[in-house]
């Protein structure tokens, strides 16, 4: 009965399984930590901490789906971060003056351009010169990390431009309660419209329709999840000290019980969600995405069908570079400093997130949503163990073991269902 109903919703069972695993991890940590895990504060922090890895995992799906790998993104993040740090603290202030309103935008544009360029360069060497991506990006891992050091001979660049820092979150870098609710309701409306449109289209072509209860359950669950997330981030107030300063600056009288100002959704989380939506759209609704998956499934067939496989692979690496730049901007903004070791080992976390999220290293299989959920899962494990006071070496052991176990389970599941 239940199985039939789940099938009728046409939801991705693996994705549901992952959401279930995530919920289980959260509850276990909540109990073990004596009620510290499932609090607005911890969940809000978790969302911000997950953002950089989630952003890059969305791009890694494309790279892995086309039977490639990118080991260079952690170093690339560090190098681009250093360049962005230097531009906003050293180059632009000399030209425009300190704290110029255009500084953040020019810095970000330069960083994104650099990310695209580095990605395109690596993609060209891989796709057109035929050097395996593992080797090219392994080289990139060393080269860009070295380059990050050279930018300032290893010196840390800080502090950063005030506006740029909003990209990293924090009380100021969040959109507040009102806008969070607005976005939440817009998202719900979009979900309803998309479901209704899909149903209309299927009706038009006389295809079998999903049963109506299934439609309602899917739409209802999606909207409930969105609104619950908004409620959680809106329940996390600004710290008292910041509220006091804010109240003084704006001449607001603080009432007796203290002033409650909610964080709302953090800007880096918005960036990650936006990235996820755009990348999912690319993967499922455009020719580029279709070709990436076809190449992963059977490169020869794609070639025979007239797909320009090399150009598609080059574009995947360009996207990956762009997303590494975005993640770099978020990371240095959050730290309020650019260091040459920023993003060390990030490539492995990103690959692990993608793989836990159901991306197959043999190519052709994987979803953006799964990979991003994988990133949240990895981050949940890590911050949960921090809450429990687990030593760093043991944390690594647990994360490593979970990665292997998750992929092992998935392999068994795939073999059983033959899909």
């Amino acid at each position: 009965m239940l199985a039939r109903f789940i099938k009728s919703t046409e939801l991705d069972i693996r994705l549901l399984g992952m959401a279930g695993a995530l919920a289980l991890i959260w509850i276990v940590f909540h109990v073990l930590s004596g009620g510290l895990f499932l609090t607005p504060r911890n969940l809000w922090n978790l969302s911000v901490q997950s953002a950089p890895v989630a952003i890059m995992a969305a791009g890694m799906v494309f790279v892995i789906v086309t039977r490639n790998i990118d080991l260079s993104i952690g170093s690339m993040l560090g190098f681009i971060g250093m360049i962005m740090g230097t531009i906003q603290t050293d180059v632009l202030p000399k030209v425009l003056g300190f704290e110029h309103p255009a500084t953040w935008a020019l810095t970000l544009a330069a960083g994104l351009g650099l990310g695209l360029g580095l990605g395109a360069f690596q993609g060209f060497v891989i796709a057109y010169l035929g050097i395996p991506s593992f080797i090219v990006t392994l080289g990139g891992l060393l080269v860009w990390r070295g380059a990050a050091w050279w930018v300032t001979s290893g010196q840390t660049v800080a502090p950063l431009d005030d506006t740029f820092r909003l990209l990293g979150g924090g009380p100021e870098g969040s959109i507040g309660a009102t806008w969070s609710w607005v976005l939440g309701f817009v998202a719900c409306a979009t979900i309803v419209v998309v479901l209704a449109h899909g149903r209309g289209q299927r009706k038009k072509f006389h295809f079998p329709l999903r049963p109506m209860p299934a439609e309602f359950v899917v739409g209802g669950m999606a909207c409930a999840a969105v609104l619950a997330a908004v409620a959680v981030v809106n329940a996390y107030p600004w710290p008292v000290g910041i509220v006091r300063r804010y109240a003084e600056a704006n001449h607001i009288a603080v009432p007796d019980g203290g002033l409650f100002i909610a964080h709302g959704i953090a800007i880096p989380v918005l960036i990650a969600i936006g990235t996820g939506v755009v990348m999912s759209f690319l993967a499922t609704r455009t020719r580029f995405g279709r070709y990436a998956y076809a190449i992963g499934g059977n490169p020869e067939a794609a070639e025979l069908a007239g797909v320009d496989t090399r150009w598609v692979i080059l574009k995947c690496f360009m996207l990956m570079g762009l997303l590494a730049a975005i993640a770099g901007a978020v990371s240095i903004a959050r730290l309020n400093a650019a260091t040459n070791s920023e993003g060390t080992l990030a490539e492995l976390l990103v690959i692990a997130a993608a793989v836990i999220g159901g991306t197959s290293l043999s190519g052709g299989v994987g979803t953006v949503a799964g990979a991003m959920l994988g990133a949240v899962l990895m981050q949940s494990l890590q911050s949960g163990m921090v809450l429990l006071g687990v030593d760093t070496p043991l944390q690594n052991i647990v994360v490593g073991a979970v990665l292997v176990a998750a992929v092992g389970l998935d392999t068994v599941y795939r073999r059983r269902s033959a899909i």
Partner: protein
Amino acid sequence: MDRTPLVAMRDISLAFGGVHAVDRVSVDLYPGEVMALVGHNGAGKSTLVKILSGAYRRDSGTIAIRGEEASIANPRDARKYGIETTYQSLALADNVDAAANLFLGRELRTRWGTLDDIAMEAEARKVIGRLNPNFQRFKDPVKALSGGERQSVAIARAILFDARILIMDEPTAALGPQEAAQVGELIRKLKSDGLGIFLISHDIHDVFDLADRICVMKNGRVVGTARVAHVTKDEVLGMIILGKCPTAAAPGLGAVED
């Protein structure tokens, strides 16, 4: 059948290094006809059709399509002349569904430039439904389909874009008897639609079942060409193994003198 042939290949030769993979081969194909190409491995039949489908370039010889000289340098050229190929390896992307495979490289798009999956699925249901009314699994990746269903997808892909000339490389290899029968049914249907089909097969029963004419090759040369009704299986086996051309067949360069 003295109309203009759909395909007329004349004196086609192609050598790899010093080996004559195809040596002065001439073969015709008429509309609504199945022409079987048979012979041992390495007899040159696959090489011959790859020249027609644009995968290989011939050293010499001419190809005429509907009586007009055709220049075929790559698979895209061949497609322009309405030549489509289904490969032995099926050449499907296993991980995406039937409609995505059908339209791979030629996707239908909405007016915003996004993939029009619904329209593609509708078209896929139409085409595959015509070929194989039992086909239901439009949402599953092709990997999950049976061999016969996969072959239906491969053939539908070929005919979707109005192929007039179909090259089928071992369409029934690796299929169970029931599925092979299904594919045979498909071939008859296509024939009655007026397509010309080159059928490469190892299975002599298949050939006698499906083909109108048969062309036997050995060592890159044609042993002989005959109407299936005029020769026996033993005679065809004699042609394949010994290169002996029976009286009912028109001998080629590869025929052994008695």
